[in-house]
């Protein structure tokens, strides 16, 4: 008998194992849905798959009466634009501040406590102030995402910079590197893989903040639709939208994982073995 830790599944076993829990969940859902339908034929909480398909098909292929848009796609486009902008801004801020805080003890002393405190403020609770400063338009939605995930990125990346062996920083200096060059050529590239990993971990929260922002004030977007139809418990729309968000998020996650491995192979050597 080999030790459990040494048993590595093959390609196909891996696939089967990955799919199994999802099948289980699907099965549970279908039976729970059927059960509720028996009790109440109009039950809205767990609609059967057929209704969800119908509902999504309609949203995705029939133009809306009011705006003429295909709602499913226009919602997706609006949300992804906000999310993409928020992500890009957060990544840039997180990387810049994370590097500077991680590298320069003076800046660490000045900013690390501030960032720690800022990361603890629940953004939802100070929305009124945010509205006044950033208005109610697209900007405030992007800002909510940025406020939501940037402190995490900054703290995580500053920590990552801190774990680069001191010997490397010293080595760079003996090779004549200035602080700026050390940051650019030693710290930055070694932080990039972790940035991508941290972004992966932030996808969930980013969607959460996006949805919250869209629930608070919006005219379109995935979160807007979910909260709008919640007014009549249209789970046949909500659940597919949630599934779609999850799928989108998972695709991003997967893409970021692939990009990280393609762009920074040296960071994943251990994994490859």
């Amino acid at each position, binding site marked *: 008998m080999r030790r459990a830790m040494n048993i590595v599944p093959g390609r196909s076993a891996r696939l089967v194992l990955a799919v199994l829990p999802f099948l289980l969940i699907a099965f549970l859902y279908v039976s729970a849905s059927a059960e509720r339908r028996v009790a*109440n*034929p*109009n*039950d*809205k*909480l767990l609609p059967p798959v057929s209704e969800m398909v*119908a*509902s999504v098909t*309609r949203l995705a292929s029939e133009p809306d009466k*009011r705006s003429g848009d295909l709602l499913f796609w226009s919602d997706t486009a609006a949300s992804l634009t906000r999310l993409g902008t928020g992500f890009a801004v957060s990544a840039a801020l997180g990387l810049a501040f994370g590097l500077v805080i991680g590298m320069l003890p003076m800046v660490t002393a000045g900013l690390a406590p501030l960032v720690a405190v800022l990361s603890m403020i629940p953004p939802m609770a100070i*929305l*009124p102030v945010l*509205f*006044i400063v950033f*208005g*109610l*338009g697209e900007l405030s939605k992007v800002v909510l995402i940025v406020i939501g995930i940037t402190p995490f990125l900054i703290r995580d990346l500053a920590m990552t910079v801190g774990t680069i062996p001191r010997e490397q920083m010293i080595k760079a200096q003996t090779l004549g590197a200035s602080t700026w060059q050390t940051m650019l050529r030693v710290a930055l590239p070694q932080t990039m893989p972790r940035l991508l990993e941290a972004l992966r971990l932030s996808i969930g929260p980013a969607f959460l903040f996006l949805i919250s922002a869209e*629930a*608070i*004030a*919006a*005219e379109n977007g995935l979160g*807007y639709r979910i*909260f*709008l139809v*919640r*007014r*009549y*418990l*249209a789970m046949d729309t909500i659940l597919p939208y949630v599934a779609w968000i999850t799928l989108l998020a998972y695709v991003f996650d997967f893409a970021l994982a692939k990009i990280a491995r393609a762009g920074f192979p040296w960071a994943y050597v251990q994994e490859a073995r």
Partner: protein
Amino acid sequence: EPKKEFEIAWTIYVGWMPWPYAADSGIIKKWADKYGITINVTQINDYVESINQYTAGRFDGVTLTNMDALTIPAVGGVDTTALIVGDFSNGNDGIVSKSAKTVAELKGETINLVELSVSHYLLARALDEAGLSEKDVTVVNTSDADMVAAFKAPDTTTVVTWNPLLAEVKAEPGANALFDSAQIPGEIIDMLAVNTQTLKDNPDFGKALVGAWYETMALVVDPGEAGQKARAAMGALSGTDLAGFDAQLAATKLFPVPADAVAFVSGPDVVTTMENVRSFSFDHGLLGEGAPSADVVGIEFPGGKVLGDTGNVKLRFDPSYMALAADGKL
């Protein structure tokens, strides 16, 4: 099937504050004991969530408006009875604008409101009366909890909302009240709805609720010290004080005695109102996206009159329990 323990849910709104007061002060327990049952009163902060939970079967009764009773539980196949009609909004809902002075001036404006709520309905009615339609404005769905703050944002010009948010919004410098529910009296009805099947199986549940409600209502309208104390407590529960609560009450047409409520429910205006509500709901897809017409769900009124599909009656206005109270038969 008959049972002994019942759950009702309430949310913070002036017309529903008697419920937590009745629970706190033991009135509910008194009436429940009288019928040998237990009634648990639970506060839910999110209004829609409370209705959703009722619709999903977690509660036997819930406080809501006539429109939401139609579009959420009734459309969701939960046969629902309007057991207690407590009041209608008489100025508690309104349109406030920083830019427009009349409803007609709203043309082309962006309006923040809770979409598909009674605010939306109020706006539709207001626009209708001014000869405009919803196409002439842009509505932005805005969460009720953030409405006051949203109105402070420089780029927000017009909101539709309800009390106590409405009072806060009106107090903003430069705000004009354009329209309110006093101009469409009796159309926004606040009530306690219960599951019809549960009620049928457990008439005592309905009797206990009605009994407790009207005992509490007596306190709400009592100008004396006991009434003031009760209203102060209700005000505190909703995050304000006696004065604030009284101001909200002033914009509410209460039915303090059961006979008034019975008369209102049995009158013809309710039918007209529900006709308006269901056509608004149908236009906005609230009756289910697949609904062929406003007739999919039947609404039953006293005397057997039914709007819509008689084979699928899911919302019933039933004054019989209030009538028992009016007749002193509880």
